[in-house]
């Protein structure tokens, strides 16, 4: 076992564990945010740079610090490694910079975005962003496109995390969309007009950290915080059948995979479960889905909300 210390908290982990995974084991404020990393998608991560941390001591054997900040999602721990997340001003600065970069061309159209309320970028900006932008240029814009009749792609919101590409690569038998062009002009696209149609294509919606890929069958139907998420399952020959179904009253508004507190789905579901089973009779209800207490989805559901301390300083500066 390797001992790793993150923001003065120590834990012993298996060799091969990444800094981010170790931080998640400790939990709380030491956990760096992650936008492009998804633990179920091989090779994901390293791109958005929001999870960067400072390695103050490489290992017990070689205590030198690492020269640059590292992506915690892809850097494996060494025995005796000492990591700084929020305790490093350099990390906090870099994270602010990443948020600024990610928001430069982002339309900030949360009021009309279906992802609002469960958006990783919204959370990241709330915790690390500023209220004013220094960007005076015109934003990069694209027209939205339909990828088949079930998924809508809103390129303006895309942060090029590549998660949907890895999902298509690893969950479906033949990937038909990918990253085209280069640099700032990179875009997620099919190149030729082609629907992404596959039994598992709907998972692209779940892995998208922002509102770039949304469920067309749920489009503008309701706000997520008005819905009540319930864990449910059904017998399914294609997938695990383990899902979260989102009620308003008795009506099922949408079906998604079960997202954990880091927004990750571990049991991917098939398109039949997601798009076609929208009657409560289709499902065996297990009980309410546990949602982190600070999530906006818990609005009106919880009392005595404990705001994580990371938010406090920002709240103070905002006030």
């Amino acid at each position: 076992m390797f001992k790793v210390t993150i923001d003065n908290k120590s834990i012993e982990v298996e060799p091969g564990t990444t800094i981010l995974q170790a931080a998640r084991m400790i939990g709380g404020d030491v956990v760096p945010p992650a936008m492009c990393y998804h633990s179920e998608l091989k090779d994901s991560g390293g791109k958005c740079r929001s999870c960067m941390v400072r390695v103050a001591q490489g290992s017990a054997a070689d205590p030198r610090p690492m020269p640059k900040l590292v992506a915690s999602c892809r850097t494996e721990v060494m025995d005796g490694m000492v990591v700084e997340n929020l305790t490093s001003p350099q990390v906090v600065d870099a994270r602010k910079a990443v948020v600024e970069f990610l928001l430069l061309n982002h339309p900030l159209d949360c009021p009309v975005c279906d992802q609002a309320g469960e958006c990783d970028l919204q959370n990241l900006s709330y915790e690390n962003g500023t209220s004013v932008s220094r960007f005076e240029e015109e934003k990069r814009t694209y027209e939205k496109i339909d990828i088949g009749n079930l998924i809508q792609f809103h390129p303006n919101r895309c942060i090029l995390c590549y998660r949907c590409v890895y999902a298509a690569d690893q969950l479906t038998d033949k990937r038909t969309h990918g990253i085209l062009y280069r640099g700032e002009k990179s875009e997620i696209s099919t190149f030729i007009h082609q629907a992404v149609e596959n039994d598992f294509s709907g998972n692209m919606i779940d892995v998208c950290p922002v509102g770039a890929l949304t469920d067309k069958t749920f489009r503008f139907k309701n706000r997520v915080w008005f819905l009540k998420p319930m864990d449910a399952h059904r017998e399914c020959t294609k997938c695990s059948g383990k899902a979260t179904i989102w009620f308003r009253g008795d009506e099922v508004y949408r079906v998604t995979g079960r997202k954990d507190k880091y927004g990750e789905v571990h049991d991917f579901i098939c398109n039949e479960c997601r798009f076609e089973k929208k009657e409560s009779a289709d499902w065996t209800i297990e009980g309410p889905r546990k949602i982190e207490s600070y999530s906006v989805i818990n609005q009106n559901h919880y009392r005595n909300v404990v705001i994580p301390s990371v938010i406090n300083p920002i709240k103070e500066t905002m006030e």
Partner: protein
Amino acid sequence: MSEKQFKHKLYVKKGLDIAFTPETLTKIQTIISHYPEGQQKSALIPVLHIAQEELGGSLNVDIMDYVAGLLNITPIEVYEVATFYSQFYIDPVGKYVIEVCQTGPCAICGGEDIIAYLEEKLQIKVGETTEDKLFSLKAVECLGACGMAPVMQVNTEFHEFLDLKKIDEIIAKLRSESELKKPEELTWKERLS
């Protein structure tokens, strides 16, 4: 200045009958043999170069799908690569693609004047193709010949230490070269379709 309003350009498969000659196919087999077994995707960039050269000067969907089939990879893998590299043209180009270096060392040695002069001479803007489909003009980044600045390449031929007189000579030479053939012979298969 880059255009900020991007439009998703969706391309169409035309169902063209694309095929390399047997000689080219042999050449491609040799290239594939340079890489370990199962790594035939490594040959993608070299094969796309050949395709672009032999099948009409640019890469359309049909050509890329054909290449994907040859290398046993998915079409999107080809599109991803073809759109990444500057040397591959997705949209049709003229017979002669004139690429003038506009990066620092060339710029301070008159590269920008060369571009302006070519725009005037060919009556097209950077990024455009002349009506007779003879010339496409592009301003490109560093061609790695800064000591011979200003430089440009026409298709794959380098021209160095350029001045306006040299440009006149090069264009005149290309024009006379192309006149040896009828215009119909110049237009490639792809543009005829």
